[in-house]
């Protein structure tokens, strides 16, 4: 068995037990303390003071423990040669377990003072008893050590399992966030499509009415000179305020007798041609009427410009969101870029925008998704530039690939961010509640990859960042 020389007697529990059995036969006091117990006999419950020590001669005793849920957990089964209640007995503390006879047993049951008495009165029994006790203790200590080791291993396993769970949870969370964002975008797209549809009717009504109103004015006006002023108004593009200011001075100089500021302002927005007409006809036609006709034409011009803008925005919104069919189809990315630029007009308005969109072949893709990519990149550039700076949007084709470049003149991307910029949850917009969700570029990359393309972000040598997307035709 063991290659080293173990303390032999410690392993010879059977021999010792046989010796003790023999002694119990010979010593009547011991024999009178030997009891027979049926299976199911409870020796003691957990948490009690113990007055007796039990030495199991034959049979089996089960040690168990009741947890908080009142469930019994079996700990060990003790066989012949084992003491039961040894720890409580030796320390005088409370029992740590329940002990129940699990097979018919023969047990030597002794009170403490009896036990000590035997040991002192019968030196023959003292020695084997002590040996047996030490053997018991050694075995339990060994078990204890094994348990400790096992607990440590289990703790380690639990720890790594917990870390794996943590990582899985984090991944799940970011997937969830991405899904929520996608869902949001889908809802937004639906809303936009619905809104675009609903606003089309009133926009069309305004456009058509303006047109009809124009015809009415043109035909009903019997007076030739008044309809001339109406047409001048219709053709007049609006003037900016500084031009209006300087032309008010001109009107005041040319028509010093007017002395009516609202009228002067209206006249200031007339072309020089109109001034000559006024001078020519002012004796026959009241000035106010001429100005009014011009103003009417100008207002209809404004209505037309405004409603055309609404109609164009709606058209772009509809093709931009493509909610009705965001599926693989033959699309031209150039159209998508143009729509995106129009939709983001309110952001791009005050930047110095360079657009170079070369004719490119169609490709098979999802227009709505790709537009989301352009939007993400352009909005990021606008955020970086704030209110002034250059931004460029370009597309071109070569060797069966379509290239889209979007660059800005901002501070560029810090080198430590370059490698992480397409990671989920990477954002530099912390604390800004609006759109800094940190998913934009991660989703963009996903979309581009779904189209079999690639996306990269670098810094330009002349300053600022550039995003390049390459897509196969």
């Amino acid at each position, binding site marked *: 068995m063991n290659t080293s020389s173990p303390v032999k007697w410690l392993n010879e529990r059977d021999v010792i037990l046989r010796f003790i059995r023999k002694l119990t036969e010979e010593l009547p006091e011991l024999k009178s303390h030997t009891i027979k117990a049926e299976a199911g006999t409870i020796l003691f419950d957990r948490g009690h003071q113990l007055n007796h020590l039990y030495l199991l001669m034959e049979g089996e005793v089960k040690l168990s423990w009741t947890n908080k849920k009142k469930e019994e957990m079996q700990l060990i089964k003790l066989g012949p040669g084992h003491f039961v209640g040894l720890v409580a007995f030796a320390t005088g503390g409370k029992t740590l377990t329940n002990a129940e006879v699990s097979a018919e047993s023969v047990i030597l049951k002794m009170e403490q003072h009896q036990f000590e008495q035997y040991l002192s009165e019968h030196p023959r029994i003292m020695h084997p008893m002590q040996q047996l006790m030490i053997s018991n203790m050694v075995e339990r200590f060994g078990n204890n050590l094994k348990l400790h080791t096992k607990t440590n291993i289990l703790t380690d396993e639990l720890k790594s399992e917990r870390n794996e769970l943590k990582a899985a949870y984090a991944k799940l969370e970011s997937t969830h966030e991405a899904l929520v964002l996608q869902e949001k975008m889908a809802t937004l797209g639906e809303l936009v499509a619905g809104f675009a549809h609903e606003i089309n009717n009133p926009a069309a009504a305004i456009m058509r009415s303006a047109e009809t109103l124009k015809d009415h004015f043109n035909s009903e006006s019997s007076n030739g000179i008044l309809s001339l002023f109406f047409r001048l108004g219709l053709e007049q593009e*609006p*003037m*900016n*305020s*500084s031009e*209006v*200011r300087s032309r008010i001075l001109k009107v005041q100089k040319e028509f010093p007798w007017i002395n*009516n*500021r*609202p009228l002067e*302002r209206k006249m200031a927005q007339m072309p020089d041609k109109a001034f000559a007409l006024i001078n020519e006809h002012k004796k026959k036609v009241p000035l106010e009427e001429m100005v009014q006709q011009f103003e009417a034409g*100008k207002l209809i011009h*404004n209505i037309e*410009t*405004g409603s055309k803008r609404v109609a164009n925005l709606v058209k772009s919104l509809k093709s931009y969101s493509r909610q009705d069919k965001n599926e693989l189809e033959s699309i031209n990315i150039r159209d998508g870029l143009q729509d995106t630029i129009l939709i983001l007009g*309110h952001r791009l*308005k*005050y930047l110095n925008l360079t657009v170079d969109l070369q004719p490119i072949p169609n490709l098979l893709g999802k227009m709505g998704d790709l537009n989301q990519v352009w939007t993400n990149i352009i909005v990021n550039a606008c955020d970086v530039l704030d*209110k*002034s700076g250059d931004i460029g949007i370009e597309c071109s084709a070569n060797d069966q690939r379509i290239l889209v470049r979007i660059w800005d003149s901002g501070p560029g991307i810090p080198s430590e961010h370059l490698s992480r910029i397409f990671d989920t949850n990477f954002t530099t917009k912390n604390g800004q509640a609006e759109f800094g969700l940190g998913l934009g570029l991660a989703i963009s990359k996903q979309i581009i990859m779904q189209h079999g393309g690639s996306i990269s972000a670098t810094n330009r040598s002349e300053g600022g960042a550039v995003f390049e997307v390459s897509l196969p035709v």
Partner: protein
Amino acid sequence: MDHQIYILIVEDELEVMDAIVNDLAAFEDQFPIETANSSEEAKQVITSIYESEQEVGLILCDHILPGENGVELLIELSTLTHTQNSKKVLVTGQAGLEDTVKAVNQADLNHYISKPWTKEQLSDVVTEQLTDYVIEHKANLLPFMARLDGTRLSEAMRNRPLTDH
């Protein structure tokens, strides 16, 4: 012409500017209108108004403007001597809650008009603001009785302590 109180409109979209000016034409016999398409131009116009010894009683301002936005402009104007007393109104469809709160707290914003407006609504706000302005800053309120809120003006005159003319 004698001393006049100006209305300044700051708006970058020319058609929209045209519409506001038309809606306020009735005020112009007494309160001349000046216009600017950007914050920068607005400040130049204000300077030239004061150089010709006139004053700005009311500023109507859009929020989204080229360069400095409307709220920033109003905050700046509220710190300048010439314009700190001018009534300030934001006319916009695009100022978010945060910007608006900033305007109220830091620029003493007097009113907020959201686009699209109605002529009646715009006239009412302008009447109310100019009435406030003249009550606070003008000794003689009689010339304004016809154009502005006569009831409030006469009440203000009654409540004024007699001055030693």
